[in-house]
């Protein structure tokens, strides 16, 4: 299961589209139905829709299975397919948090949590390169969403910190549920786990929805098409996720969540194809930079070798000089998060005459996170190389690092935080109108370029050594 299998391509694509569609339909249904009805109804219908796909397991197969595996499958399904989506619905209104924030926190962040959680389970443990790839994909996803519009509505943990933290907590629940599902699928297979996981979630979801079902019948009569669409999306996501996790590992299944912002952004293409055009708010130069970093990170997650692969005995180790360079690059990149990265101006000319200039820290900008991703990718490739897993790591890892480094340029003036707590709300509410403006300009710290240079040298040395090692081992094989 170490290498990306072509058998996982279709289910992964299905899960990716499913995760994007789940987000979109959840937004549509937000505040139109009670949240327990939305979550329970969607997963109950998804269970029914999954039966022709996954089938119904034989009774004797269930009887002979260990109770632990059955409980893990059911419990994992409840956590991942009902509890986590329900918590997200409870803390979301249609635009609070804004769609860009909710999308990032309920898909990309969940994918990152899942990959990181896999380090705790030996059977699912990804390589360091894959973990670094998840970080790069997260940075790319944030940069993409921050370029959906200017001034951007993407400002996590500012206006709705409670909701944001709750959605992240739901992500932890999802990650734990995903690990439980993966553990049970190793014994029972994905079809049985789909039946038990979705069935368990459906049972709990329906029970939870019963108290408010009668009062919701009128709304259900109006909203059933949207609920059915959400159920179809949930089915696609669940079946695709389980199949991908079984064939290629849970970290690779997490790409379905990491890549969701790209899939939702692609909806604008459908808008253009149908001619239903409004003003195009997307800053495409920055959006493409974010997309590139997101894709590069996902590529590293998909293509890098897992830690459960056996270490090549007697494999040559990378040159000693690379480690201090890579670590220095990482520390320098981390330091830039605390240093100024953007200069910002906010002017209000309407009811609240107000004008302020300030420096935004690297933590609040896209580029320092990307540079950190570059450094972490190079360091991760080095650590994977030191344990002997060279061939399948250095190509995806270093390619991802190069793409993320190139993505820095169109993202130099991308803020990850537009709203603040200390500028009057009357000014921020009218950003982008004739009454107030918000503008940023790139002001990167020199340490940023130092980090990139260190990472580039380390990557160059590492890449050259890995290529030479690869050539030498191929020559030895042909002899």
């Amino acid at each position, binding site marked *: 299961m170490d290498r990306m299998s072509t058998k996982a391509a279709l289910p992964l694509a299905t899960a990716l589209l499913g995760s994007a569609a789940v987000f979109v339909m959840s937004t549509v249904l937000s505040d139109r139905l009670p949240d327990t009805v939305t979550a329970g109804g969607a997963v109950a219908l998804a269970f029914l829709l999954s039966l022709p796909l996954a089938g119904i397991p034989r009774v004797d197969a269930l009887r002979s299975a260990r109770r632990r595996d059955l409980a893990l499958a059911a419990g994992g399904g409840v956590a991942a397919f009902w509890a986590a989506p329900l918590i997200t619905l409870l803390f979301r209104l249609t635009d609070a948090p804004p769609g860009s924030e909710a999308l990032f926190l309920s898909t990309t962040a969940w994918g990152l949590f899942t990959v990181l959680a896999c380090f705790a389970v030996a059977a699912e443990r990804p390589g360091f390169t894959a973990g670094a790839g998840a970080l790069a994909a997260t940075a790319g996803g944030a940069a993409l969403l921050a370029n959906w519009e200017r001034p951007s509505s993407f400002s996590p943990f500012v206006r709705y910190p409670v909701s944001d933290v709750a959605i992240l907590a739901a992500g932890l629940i999802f990650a734990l549920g995903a690990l439980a599902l993966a553990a049970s699928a190793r014994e029972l297979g994905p079809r049985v786990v789909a039946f038990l996981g979705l069935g368990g979630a459906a049972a709990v979801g329906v029970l939870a929805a019963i108290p408010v079902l009668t009062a919701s019948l009128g709304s259900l009569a109006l909203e059933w098409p949207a609920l059915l669409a959400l159920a179809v999306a949930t089915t696609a996501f669940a079946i695709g996720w389980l199949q991908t996790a079984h064939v290629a590992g849970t970290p690779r299944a997490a790409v379905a969540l990491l890549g969701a912002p790209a899939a939702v952004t692609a909806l604008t293409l459908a808008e253009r194809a149908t001619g239903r055009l409004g003003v195009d708010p997307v800053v495409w130069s920055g959006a493409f930079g974010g997309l590139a970093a997101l894709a590069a990170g996902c590529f590293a997650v998909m293509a890098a070798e897992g830690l459960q692969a056996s270490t090549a005995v007697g494999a040559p180790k990378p040159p000693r000089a690379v480690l201090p360079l890579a670590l220095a690059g*990482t520390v320098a990149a981390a330091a830039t998060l605390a240093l100024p990265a953007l200069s910002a101006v906010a002017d209000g000319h309407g*009811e609240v005459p107000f004008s302020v200039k300030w420096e935004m*820290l690297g*933590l609040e900008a896209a580029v320092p996170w990307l540079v950190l991703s570059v450094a972490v990718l190079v360091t991760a490739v080095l650590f994977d190389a*030191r344990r002997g897993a060279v061939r399948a790591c250095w190509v995806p890892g270093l390619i991802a690092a190069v793409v993320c480094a190139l993505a820095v340029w169109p993202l130099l003036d991308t803020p990850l935080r537009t709203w603040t707590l200390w500028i009057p709300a009357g000014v921020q509410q009218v950003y982008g109108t004739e009454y107030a403006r918000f503008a940023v300009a790139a002001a990167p710290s020199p340490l940023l370029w130092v980090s990139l240079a260190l990472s580039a040298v380390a990557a160059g040395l590492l890449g050259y050594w890995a290529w030479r090692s690869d050539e030498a081992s191929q020559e030895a094989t042909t002899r």
Partner: protein
Amino acid sequence: MTGAVRGSIARATAALLLVALMFSATGCQRTVEVQTGTRVVCTYGHVISDNVQMVKVPAKEAAKYQVETVTRLCDRHAKLEALYEAAQKALAAGDLQRAKLKLGQVVATDATFRKAKQQLDTLNKGGKPAPDSTPNNPSVTPTTTPPSTGTTATVPNALTAWTPDAITGFSAKKALVDPLSVSREYLPSAGSNPAAALVIYAEQYLSPAAATAALSTQVKSAYPKNAATIKVNSHSAYFGTDGRQFAVIGFTSGPVMVALEMTAKSGDPAALRSAIEAAAKQLP
């Protein structure tokens, strides 16, 4: 995982923690440059005085600093207006010599002031210009505060009585007015206000019974938690919340349904009851 790798990870983690500490120190002490001061502008458009400057303050105090614009008549234009008015009175009384004298003084100071030059030229050619009866700068009145908000409606609307220009603790935004409804958003003036926003909405129905039915279907059913009947001025009103973020007071006044909706910063809308009652009591 080899010991060397673990050691490297431990070293890197320690370095990152050090950086995190550095960040927490810098992040807590952010200072910003904010514009503050007073700009005095003549009603004729030019700046009389401007002491606006940028000052560095802690970020959390930035909202206290704003630019105040004061509009008043400057001394020079006050003298010009007095001379011009005297000239017009002289023209009306037929005293062309006096009018010529006054207009000459005006033109000597500002040749572009109103119609002084044209009138003086006419007098110099032996003609008799008509007095200028338009008032001085009728569209601009001296102010000492930022311009107040007004409704977007051009036709007076009785419903706008329910969305006043001032609610204590809030600043009003422009009202959205339709023939049968009006809504207005109010933003908190101070950071200590427990509300994130207040919206007042008033709608005219066909009859008092229809307004009462709307109150039941639109307000009571949407905000069923913490329900209570309260007295707001002379109205028997409904207080309720959605249990998560919003508190509402709704009542009817004849065929009009009025609703105030307040958003809680803290996530405890029941705690907004006294604040929303205080706002409602400022309505008719």
